């Protein structure tokens, strides 16, 4: 670890601290329908959208109607994405003449993946998707799945803030305002910033370059014979990347235009573009803590939650940075020490321009949030370095978190923390003036239980059957980690992977597809039920027995609840995967 590495990490956290308030105030204004400086441009577009779609913007919804609208929209837009992939051969903006995305289970998996804000990718973008599918299918879903998440978080916050009311807002209005006010303006500016760094943005066919030095390449054919060919050309994949890149991070989607995601020089060409992308990932999640404080009238509570997130972030990045900087002791006769001329450490799967610090930081940030973009392959991380992203997802990605999803995930933990505190002092737990009762805790537990259920059941099935184990690239305990990571990433709607696992198979496409849908919708529904239930409750003024949710004690308790729930659930699986691999690596064992 170096001083410069830590400066980069702390500057990043500092920027997130600075953006929290302006972003939070802005979102609170947008969703309370107060005036903002963008209204003159955006309000006419908003009105037009309502007119053509028939939305009554003054209609208020109960939680059930809110949930049904959200589900209907998800189903319809998911179907459209499926069809778009299957029909892309007939659609425009396809200079590489890609045919339909096949097989069907891949198209299903991808449709589920982008609808649920996961962006799990069982395909390689530059070899599969036309520019039209990327823009109007995948990048489009980056917008609306993120906007849906923000809408849901705002609905939950309204549930806390409102008193004796039956409704929690209008899904369509929240969706449209998320898209127009929060996402779109930032993306136009951010995309151009990324282009200025070298992220490509064009609709041209792939370029052909004549290699400076032709290369002899040996390939082994299906018949086992080795053929030597001379390669004289390099095909350079192009595309409308920047417009997708920025919403991929800002909406914590994570689906790369190219297979190598943000490790690809055309997606993430410079250290500055890397910082812009990292910043975009956390901006909304951090801002929502301030929005929470503002809309519920307890700004200090918002900051208490922010602090818990920041502490967990620092813990993760410290472990990841330390582990990756330590390098791989099995690689003899290599120089892995950090010097002025190199960042050393474990460089397999990492890019030179990012080095160790930025790769460890990116891996931590992308899994703290439910982003899932990568700038280095987690599968090639050291056992403990790779365990950090895995654990982050297992903690439900509440560390600044996915846009919206991180906030409502965190609020579920807050409900549990308040409940546990209530048990300890023997009083009915209260949260910001609302009594937390059996119904709320039951629903919160449902959210907490669905998650490990899908992960552990599918991981277990996959690790003892040929259809699961035959996809493993890295044998030994690392193989279990690959499977565990896949389902954890799916259920957490993260989308990053231990990429060695071959996942475009009927088994994995289908089960991970279902895992993503369960991880998204089976958690949203109980969450909305809590919101609806809280909204109709009476306000109870704080008394001596109320556990304050604005203090450092609360922050510590919240962190404790998150870690204990996560550890109790997943420690056995982790000990057979990355922890075992770490011990065996130290003993010099290979597979």
């Amino acid at each position, binding site marked *: 670890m170096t001083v410069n590495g830590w400066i*980069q990490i702390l500057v990043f956290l500092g920027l997130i601290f600075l953006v929290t308030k302006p972003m939070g105030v802005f979102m609170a204004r947008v969703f309370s329908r107060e005036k903002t400086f963008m209204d003159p441009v955006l309000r006419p577009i908003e009105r037009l959208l309502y007119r*053509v*779609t*028939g939305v009554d913007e003054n209609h208020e919804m109960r939680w059930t109607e809110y949930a049904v609208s959200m589900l209907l929209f998800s189903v319809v837009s998911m179907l459209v994405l499926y069809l778009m992939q299957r029909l892309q051969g007939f659609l425009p903006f396809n200079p590489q003449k890609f045919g339909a995305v096949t097989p069907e289970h891949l198209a299903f998996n991808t449709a589920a993946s982008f609808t649920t804000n996961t962006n799990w990718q069982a395909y390689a973008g*530059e070899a599969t998707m036309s520019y039209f599918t990327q823009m109007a299918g995948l990048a*489009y879903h980056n*917008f609306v799945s993120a906007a849906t998440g923000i809408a849901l978080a705002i609905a939950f916050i309204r549930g806390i803030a409102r008193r004796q009311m039956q409704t929690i807002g209008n899904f369509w209005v929240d969706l449209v305002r998320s*898209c127009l006010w929060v996402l*779109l303006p930032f993306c136009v500016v951010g*995309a151009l910033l990324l*282009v200025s760094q070298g*992220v*490509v943005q*064009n*609709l*041209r066919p*792939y*370029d052909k*370059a*004549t*290699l*400076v*030095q032709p290369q002899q*390449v040996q390939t082994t054919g299906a018949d086992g014979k080795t053929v030597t060919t001379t*390669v004289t050309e*390099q095909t*350079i*994949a*192009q595309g*409308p990347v*920047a417009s997708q890149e920025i919403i991929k991070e800002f909406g914590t989607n994570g689906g790369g235009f*190219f297979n*190598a995601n943000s*490790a690809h*020089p*055309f997606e993430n060409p*410079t250290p*500055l573009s890397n910082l812009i992308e990292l910043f975009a990932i956390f901006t909304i999640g951090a801002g929502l803590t301030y929005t929470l404080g503002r809309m519920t009238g307890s700004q200090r509570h918002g900051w208490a939650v922010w602090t818990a997130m920041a502490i967990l972030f620092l813990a993760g990045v410290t472990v990841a940075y330390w582990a990756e900087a330590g390098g*791989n002791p*099995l690689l003899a*006769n*290599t*120089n*892995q020490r950090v*010097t002025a001329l190199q960042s050393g450490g474990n*460089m*397999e*799967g990492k890019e*030179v321009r990012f080095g160790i610090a930025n790769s460890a930081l990116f891996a931590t940030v992308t899994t703290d949030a439910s982003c899932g973009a990568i700038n*280095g*392959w987690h*599968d*090639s991380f050291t056992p403990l370095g790779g365990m950090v992203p895995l654990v982050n997802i297992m903690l439900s990605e509440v560390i600044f978190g996915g846009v919206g999803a991180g906030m409502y995930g965190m609020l579920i933990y807050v409900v549990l923390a308040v409940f546990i505190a209530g048990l300890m002092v023997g009083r009915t737990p209260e949260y910001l003036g609302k009594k937390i009762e059996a119904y709320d805790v039951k629903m919160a537990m449902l959210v907490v239980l669905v998650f490990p259920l899908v992960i552990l059941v599918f991981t277990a099935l996959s690790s003892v059957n040929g259809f699961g184990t035959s996809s493993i*690239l*890295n044998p030994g305990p690392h193989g279990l980690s690959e499977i565990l990571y896949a389902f954890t990433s799916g259920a957490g709607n993260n989308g990053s992977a*231990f990429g*060695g696992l071959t996942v475009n198979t009927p088994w994995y496409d289908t089960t991970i597809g279902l895992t993503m849908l369960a991880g998204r919708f089976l958690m949203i529904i109980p969450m909305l039920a809590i919101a609806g239930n809280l909204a109709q409750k009476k306000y109870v003024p704080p008394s001596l027995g109320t556990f304050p949710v604005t203090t450092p004690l609360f922050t510590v308790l919240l962190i404790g609840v998150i870690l204990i729930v996560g550890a109790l659930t997943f420690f056995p699986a982790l000990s057979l995967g990355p922890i075992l691999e770490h011990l*065996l*690596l130290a003993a010099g064992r*290979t597979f």
Partner: protein
Amino acid sequence: MKKNLMISVLMTIATTILLGIIYPLVVTGLAQVFFKDKANGQLIVRDGQVVGSRIIGQAFTGPAYFHSRPSAAGSGYDAANSNGSQLGPTNQHLIDRVKADVAAAQMDNPGQPVPIDLVTASGSGLDPDITPAAAEFQVPRVAKERGASADDVERLVQEHTQQRQLGFLGEPRVNVLELNLELDQRFPLKKQAKAE
């Protein structure tokens, strides 16, 4: 329910047009006007021929060029098939591959430990850079092969070393394609492998 279903369909269509078509096309237009070269991939043209992108790596072998990192993109530096090796830290294939690459690299510098980036595959398989350490390591070999003094080649490496962005972001790096192109100009090979 029926009303909301209708809205779902119309909303999907309307927002797809706005966010899925108009937005990327507007960004494309702006990018092409303000950052034409960058938006098109910073292609390098020599004698009317595209020889690569400034920010996409290429494979270099043999003693006369600075080598780039091992690549797992397609058959190596395939810029239409980006990928890393995905090999885990305890995978014997990784250990063996690194061992072979280390042995080859040490032929030029016997006994010297090899800078780690020179024997590890990058994330994209298209990493345009090597570390200054990896460039230094190769200076004696390249200088000898090109009949140039080590000092001259060393100076070239330093000219091509990009420092941290804004003084603190990222890591120092050397762009291999640009360095090798300049090498060909300043210290041309008598019998160019390129002539074949």
